[in-house]
């Protein structure tokens, strides 16, 4: 028993940074379950619309508001469309939007925050003031304006969300870099005359990346919810393309809520479960990435 334990500890020490992160993450059961659940959801969203005999937009009003049956496992909607197909197709769109938005906002945020934090001074002040301006934007008015000016394609929706969210990433990255710069080893780097490039890519970025990954995971969750809120306000994705956000709007009718559960339970679960998974993975990653939390 004893030897096994010692061996394991040594293993962790021998692992690389990311290896040890993954090792710690694997110990977090909830995060691991979340990863598996999410992977299944993504897989289904990719496969089901491909395999389904129905299209997400072809209407058939003779067949409307059907409760779940063998042909339509999740029933049909007001226009007689198969809700199973629409649900998984919507998942593709919702998760796809979230992924693209988060990747882009992190890229913009890391660059801006990194520049601000590393160079400091006037550059820092300018970028931070820009962040504050973006964070103080009237969200709704901004969405309406941008979409009216540039159309309401998915691209524009993604762009709007990126524009409004990058400052959070930039602030986190800048804060982290500021804190790291004060640390002894960075001061040592400076004293040793190590180049800017090496300092940024070898020492600063890996440390910052941990925080960004955590933020990105949590960001996925928040983009999914923002898309739902936009749909609530009628500013979501244009029909007939479904998203989880537009599908769940059906629950606003108390009659649907009570009588047609198959309209809203799937998108409700889709949103809640995937948001929860992203949050749990984010928490797990935060714990796993923070070396101080090693016990």
């Amino acid at each position, binding site marked *: 028993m004893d030897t096994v334990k010692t061996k394991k500890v040594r293993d962790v020490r021998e692992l690389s940074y990311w290896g040890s992160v993954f090792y710690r993450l694997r110990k977090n059961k909830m995060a691991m379950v979340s990863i598996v659940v999410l992977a299944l959801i993504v897989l289904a969203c990719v496969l089901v619309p491909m395999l389904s005999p129905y299209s997400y*937009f072809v209407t058939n*009003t003779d067949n*409307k508001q059907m409760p779940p049956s063998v042909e339509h496992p999740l029933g049909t909607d007001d226009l007689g469309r198969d809700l199973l197909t629409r649900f998984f197709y919507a998942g593709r769109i919702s998760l796809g939007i979230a992924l693209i938005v988060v990747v882009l906002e992190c890229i913009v945020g890391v660059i801006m925050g990194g520049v601000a934090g590393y160079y400091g001074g006037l550059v820092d002040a300018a970028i931070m003031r820009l962040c504050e301006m973006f964070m103080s934007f009237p969200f709704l008015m901004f969405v309406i304006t941008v979409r009216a000016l540039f159309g*309401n394609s998915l691209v524009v929706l993604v762009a709007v969300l990126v524009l409004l969210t990058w400052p959070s990433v930039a602030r986190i990255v800048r804060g982290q870099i500021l804190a790291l710069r004060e640390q002894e080893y960075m001061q040592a780097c400076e004293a040793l005359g190590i180049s800017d490039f090496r300092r940024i890519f070898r020492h600063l970025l890996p440390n910052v990346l941990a925080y960004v990954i955590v933020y990105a995971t949590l960001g996925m969750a928040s983009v999914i919810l923002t898309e739902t809120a936009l749909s609530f306000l*009628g500013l979501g994705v244009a*029909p*007939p393309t479904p998203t989880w956000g537009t599908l769940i709007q059906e629950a606003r009718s108390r*009659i649907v809520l009570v009588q047609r559960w198959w309209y809203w339970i799937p998108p409700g679960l889709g949103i809640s479960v995937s948001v929860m998974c992203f949050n749990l993975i984010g928490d797990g990653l935060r714990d796993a990435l923070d070396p101080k939390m090693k016990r």
Partner: protein
Amino acid sequence: MLKKAKRIVALSLTLLMLLVVLSGCQGGQGDKILLFGTTGIDGNFASIMASNVYDSYVATLIFDFLIDNDAEGMYYGDIASYELSNGNRTYTFTLKDGIKFSDGQPLTSADVAFTYKTIGHPDYNGPRAYAVAGLVGYADYNSGASSDFAGIKVIDEKTIAFTFEEASPANIETFLYGIMPEHYYGFNTWSEFLALNEKPMGSGKFILEEYRPMEFVRLAANTDYWDRSKRVKIGGILMSEVPEESLLDAFATGALHVAQPQSNQDNVNAYRDMDGVTPQIILGNGYTFLCFNTLQPTLNDARVRQALMYGVDRVAFIEAVYGDMATVGLAPISPASWAFPDSGINDYAFDMDKAAALFAEAGWVKGSDGILEKDGVKMSINWLVYTDVAWPGRLAEMAYDSWGQLGVDLKIELMDFNTVAARTMDAPMDEKMNFDLYTMGFSLSIDPDPTGALFDYDAYTEGGFNASGYYNARSQELITLGKQEFDQGRRTEIYHEWARLMNEELPTVIVAYRNEIWAVSDNVKGMNISTYQTWVQNIHEITID
């Protein structure tokens, strides 16, 4: 055991006594409050300022009107009788005796003149300028060139005459604004007038008690109303803002007596099934429409527009969105109106073959990508859909499917209502080509005159109501003839011909005539709502159990 039984008997007796006492208290109607559900009160209660429907209800309850209409949509003198003279250009009103405002002051023809002059006042910033714009002398008075409004003449304390530039049966609708007391609303600066906007005072059946923005309006019965036969029996009205999502449950829990839920089959079924509530279903005075930009090369052929109409299943759309709560639209005139043509109207019943044939006849053939093409132009059209309500999106989704099969490349653009208006009717003339289709709802007044509306080429301007750009000489001629004709029979003929012409040419399609659902608690008696009469017009007949 015995002790327990005794206690129960004692308790029930007490309760019974309590009930007797309580019911004794509530014997009269004077303390009964009608609970009405609204969705948006703006607080523009001065009769000439009210623009949204709930503000108008409040204004109608607080003010008295020169004319009113019956259930058939026929106007009659209300607090005054009137005569038409001077080649049908002059209306002379004689006020009834004993009319007084709720502060006890008498209502005279000076107050009537004040009300209408205020609409024409240079500083007036309400939405009703058109009501007096047809009167003689409007331009001079409105520009400030003259301090006298020539078309409004006070003859004596009870008599007043209004003279219009042109005679038209539709002129009567000028007199639909409540009479405001000059001694209360009289103003030196316009902001003085606006300061009283939220504190209305009139001669009507109710008095405003309390107004809380975005919460409620509380009205108390005017127990001293001048016309004893029309004094209201109930004690007051509470109009609360209720979120659409909770309307149904508000009825179920007794928190509401009357409201107008959205028109769909789900709602009507739910209210029919609910104990203690009976829905009243009436034909709404209006329609929903789909406007084609007829100046676009894709849509300038009537056959293409007809093909598009044959190619979307409006019956199925109505079934899906409204259920029994709407019927297929036919003509730009309400089926409730005397002007509605009963025959000779094509309903464009869903027929994909006919649609395909019409496209072919118009010279549109499918290209290699499956999209219709003619002279190098692709049948690629956009549809501006506003999301404030659900139906435009639903119709567009159905069209996306069936038109797609016909080879039409439809792009649905989502926006809010204001943006649709800006890109269609309110667009400057050089930006009128940025849309192909848009949908909207339209409510009619009682008179069927379509001047300035969807089909009137004169309204094809920046800010005008006609965004289709459609011109037809005969149509313009008929519109002019219709508003000048006083003979009902001949006027009917004119509108029948016009409706058939529009139904053939389809610059704008009438999508559906919607029914209104009015949920009314069974406790409320005497609530008579009809296409032409709102619940506030017969408020004095209402009692509450």
